[in-house]
């Protein structure tokens, strides 16, 4: 295994913002800013290797040690519960997990509630904590359609601005959890690369104003 620090970044705007923080912590890799379709970038002098992966896969790369650290949304961490350290809240990609339904929806507690979601485990845990019997309908996208077509009573999904909900005559009826991007680390690799990882954590905390 290489002694480079392997960093899994989520593809997209969030990943680019996260890279800026890493650069300021002394882990620059200028080639990453070039416009091309490469997925792996390394800077042997700074001892760092970055790779772009699908945001929902970051936790898998980190848990299995292919990446030492990475940035993943709290939604993914709560859904899949990977065995990783969660070292910092980047306070980026802030949104919330919420329950939404058609405007005017009234819950009938005598019936099983049909819940459409991408986040089965989060939804299951949420309703278990309320003691509510539910029927989970797993969907992979366009969750908002489910209540409109009568496929489900409610949806459990990520809400950023609420525009999609509004345009589809839906509204949030309950907040489940606040979500933001987190810095995660592989527990074993952390033992061998803690100095570099600590540097990044303190840079992040400094930038987001955390302790």
């Amino acid at each position, binding site marked *: *295994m290489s002694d480079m620090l392997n960093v899994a970044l989520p593809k997209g705007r969030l990943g680019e913002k996260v890279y800026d923080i890493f650069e300021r912590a002394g882990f620059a890799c200028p080639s990453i800013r070039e416009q091309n379709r490469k997925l792996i970038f390394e800077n042997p002098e700074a001892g760092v290797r970055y790779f772009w992966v699908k945001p929902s896969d970051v936790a898998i790369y980190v848990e299995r*040690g292919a990446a030492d650290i990475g940035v993943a949304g709290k939604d993914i961490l709560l859904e899949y519960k990977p065995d990783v350290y*969660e070292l910092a809240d980047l306070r980026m990609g802030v949104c919330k997990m919420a329950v939404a339904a058609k405007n005017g929806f009234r819950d009938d507690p005598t019936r099983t509630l049909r819940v459409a979601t991408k986040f089965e485990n989060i939804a299951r845990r949420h309703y278990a904590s309320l003691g509510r019997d539910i029927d989970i309908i797993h969907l992979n996208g366009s969750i908002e359609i489910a209540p409109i077509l009568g496929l489900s009573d409610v949806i459990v999904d990520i809400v950023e601005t609420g525009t999609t909900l509004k345009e589809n005559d839906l509204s949030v009826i309950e907040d489940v959890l606040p979500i933001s991007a987190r810095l995660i680390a592989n527990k*074993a690799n952390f033992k061998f690369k803690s100095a570099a990882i600590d540097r990044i954590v303190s840079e992040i905390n400094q930038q987001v104003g955390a302790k």
Partner: protein
Amino acid sequence: MQSNELFCGRAERAVLSLRALYRAHGYSQYKMSKFEEYDLYVRNKSFLISDHVITLTDTTGRLLALKPDVTLSIVKNSRDTAGVKKVYYNENVYRTAAASHDFREITQVGLECMGEIDAYCTAEVLSLAARSLDALSPEFVLEVSHLDVVSHLLDSVGAEGAMRAELLRFLAEKNTHDIRALCASCGWDNESVELLCALVAVSGTPSSVRAQLDALSVACPNVKGAMDELYDAIGQLETEGFGAQLRLDFSLINDMNYYNGIVFRGYIKGVPTRILSGGRYDGLMHKMGKRQSAIGFAVYLDLLDGLNEPPAEYDVDTVVLYDATTPTARVSAAVAACVSAGERALALRELTDGLRYRELVDLRGDKCCE
């Protein structure tokens, strides 16, 4: 002649050296059946790493399980006798993989020390854990924690029930931002919460974190006893020269219903999860109706498969090619010559695709040698 060990895989070699190590320290081997009553695991489900147990029914209708764990069986069969009983095991256990839900057979080697556990027993088990890791890889880390330190700090925060469980989860993640958020929402004393966060931040060799831990002991005098016990236990390891490989890290949290006191985990470079796990488990002993104490650990040797060893350059040293005209005695003699020189020889009628060899001895037809 080459040693037989060279022909073993990495895990097999490790089994041999670990067994020799444990035997040398007076541990006797514990053998057990592949099957155990399912009931044992149902009652102690949270002690198991994986929730899923592979079950089957025997001819009398009893529900059995393919054993997912060794320690439970050893504890169940142990007797409350005076003194200390030291056993080691080398067994296969059966679990389902977390991600794929496939059945897995896992080679596990470990030891248990049960009875009146004193400071020497603890130091010996920790030392054997460090030596086990050393036998697997020169680049290893042994992480040690004391659950009573964590427990006292949680008491001083005032966390109970579900909130305590949540805090423990955050501690295990080194997640100070959510600890602070949870404590703020519960209105807990800020000073105690900061002590908890300071504890999470501890991660380093005993000498490098000594000042941080001393400060914690001053701020929360309840933890002093546990802290002293921890330093006593690792003192011997430092004397044995393992100081640089030791890490004190209080994010290491095992289930407190079973474990108490000193707990530890071992990592080797290149394996992405802990390869060794152990600790003091008086809680499990008491749950199973035993009065004794116990400490032990397990090494998960299947994880060595994950290490990327450079592939062998050749499949065999020599290929001996023969055909119908070659006398059997000549083929045998050629193979025997290689074997006695400590080489690997493969006799074939024709070369198979992709076979990598260092030398070719061609005994086909009139050809003599190539």
